[in-house]
């Protein structure tokens, strides 16, 4: 019974009222010349006790029901098909630009951020069995949400994660934090880091090694949705004048390919390409994933009311059949 709780447990004290039917008969006294003349009737005694007991239980049932009994929220492990997905979202200032590369300001709907938000929200609400975590990063990674099934929280985080960004892009530490979510967790389902970024970032040599190690430890896969400007570099074609400062995306892509874990990049130049990329990932990642299903807290008070009503019936019957004087 440990998974039953009460909204107002202190009300249960009122269950002491169950004693009342035993202390008072609840019947009007009748005059009779001599009680000693009347024989003891076992059936009558039994009926009297039964009525008192039933009234007593009725009172208890009422008190219990009013105290608000409920079955606690329970979690049941089920097996679904899905993945553990860490959304790693770039919040640097370049995300304010539109795909065309023109700066549109915070209110513009078609900024890369706004488009990414819309499509990701859609993705999150459709993937029923997945676990999601959210990390935002610009100069420093921000722990937004742990791996969770709380879908409302995930979409609330995605909705605000693509507000006006600011600062530079430090992708390395963001990746490290994303990988931390998998560290020391029982593996179930595919592990995915979904990086949504427009590149423009480089990773320090030292961090590179750490990332190598972490990727192989956690067995995570990396998907990079590269929100490319129309003027931006292509990831697969070597740029004409390669340089870490002019075309960091190209080098980032090269580095990700050396990680040794499954990696794919999607160049999304517009909303449609982005949608295709997400659909692609959706189709790919459907491994068996044990997940916890929440059975919400359940109100049990109705049982109490029904029980109370049932227990009150004998009392009603006995009172209805009561005599108020002797008739012979």
């Amino acid at each position, binding site marked *: 019974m440990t998974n039953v709780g009460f909204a107002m447990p202190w009300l249960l004290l009122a269950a002491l009222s169950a004693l009342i039917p035993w202390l008072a008969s609840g019947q009007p006294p009748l005059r009779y010349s001599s009680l000693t003349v009347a024989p003891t009737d076992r059936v009558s005694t039994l009926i009297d006790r039964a009525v008192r007991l039933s009234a007593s239980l009725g009172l208890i049932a009422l008190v219990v029901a009013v105290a608000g009994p409920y079955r606690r929220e329970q979690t049941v492990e089920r097996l679904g098909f899905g993945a553990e997905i860490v959304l790693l979202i770039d919040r640097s200032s370049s995300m304010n630009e539109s795909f065309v590369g023109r700066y549109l300001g915070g209110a513009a709907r078609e900024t890369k951020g706004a488009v990414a938000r819309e499509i990701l929200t859609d993705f999150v609400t459709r993937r029923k069995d997945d676990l999601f975590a959210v990390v935002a990063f610009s*100069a420093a990674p921000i722990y*937004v949400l742990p791996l969770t099934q709380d879908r409302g929280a995930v979409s609330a985080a995605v909705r*605000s994660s693509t*507000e006006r960004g600011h*600062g530079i892009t430090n992708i390395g530490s963001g990746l490290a934090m994303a990988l931390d979510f998998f560290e020391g967790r029982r593996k179930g389902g595919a592990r995915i880091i979904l990086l949504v970024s427009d590149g423009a970032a480089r990773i320090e040599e030292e961090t590179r090694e750490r990332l190598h190690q972490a990727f192989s430890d956690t067995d995570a896969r990396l998907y990079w949705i590269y929100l490319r400007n129309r003027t931006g570099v292509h990831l697969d074609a070597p740029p004409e004048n390669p340089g870490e400062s002019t075309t960091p995306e190209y080098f980032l892509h090269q580095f990700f390919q050396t990680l040794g874990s499954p990696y794919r990049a999607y160049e999304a130049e517009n909303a449609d390409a982005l949608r295709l990329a997400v659909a692609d990932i959706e189709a790919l990642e459907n491994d068996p994933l044990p997940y916890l299903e929440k059975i919400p807290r359940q109100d049990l008070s*109705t049982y109490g*009311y029904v029980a109370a*009503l049932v227990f*009150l019936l004998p009392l009603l019957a006995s009172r209805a059949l009561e005599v108020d004087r002797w008739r012979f």
Partner: protein
Amino acid sequence: MTSGDRPFRWRLWLAVLAAVLTAVAIAHPRVPFERNVFRYFFVIDITQSMNVRDYHVTGQPADRLGFVKQTLAEALFELPCGSEVGLGLFTTRNAELLFEPLEVCEHLPIITDVLSHIDWRMAWAADSYIATGLYNALRQVGQRKPATRLVFLSDGQQTPDEAITPPFMGKAGEVKGVVVGVGGSQPMLVPKLDRENRQTGYWENADLTAPEDRTPTQQFEAQAIPETPPSGFYLSRLHEDHLKRLAATTGLDYLRLNRAEDLRHALRSDKYAEPQRVQVDLAPLLAGLAWLLLIASYWRMPRLRRPAVAR
């Protein structure tokens, strides 16, 4: 001797009424009822001056940020169901919102988890321009559902000092809320922590260099700012006057966070509440009444009947 002149059988009728009430309770009748809920956006200053340890409350963390986090966690617990809470961070000139407001009862575990992970190392820059940050937070909160209140928690420590507070362009009082002053009025040393959160010393004035990302206007202003003394420790205190002034110009309230109760109390103030219509279940009320009637039906009143018999 017909039954027509029987005395009124109140015990029976009380029991019948109790049974009827119980039967109605089974159907859980509901009536609409107005109740106060809250929608808060908490924006927490995570600059390094928030690491100063100047709280001395038993059972609470000593550092400003830790104190804020624990106080908030306690306060969230006391908000009525149906209230919504969003979290955001502040450094430099911006408020960064982590998630849109979430219903507090359903999502409490995750909100407190995120709250407990808020850390000064999430800061994307070390400067803090309180006024600009507050205006930014106000603008973002203003874009959300009406009746979203801003709770801005900061120690008011500007780094670097700004000689001129930028003007507030919005409408004062459009977004309601409270600026919460965190810290003590005694200047204290600011711990210098490394990326692993180990203390390596205290910030000194010599460590603070002029920020590089200055706009021409700020460079111009910078000339008006007296040079920071190059020697000595960098000290931080609650700049209450500054925060109060900012609160006044933006139409927010000001609260100094001394004890956890202060904030808990303020957050449940009717000033910030929004009435929400909820359906209230009448069943407990009906059943409670039934219980009372049943108990009353055991009342002993034997003398009452005597005149009737005597007549």
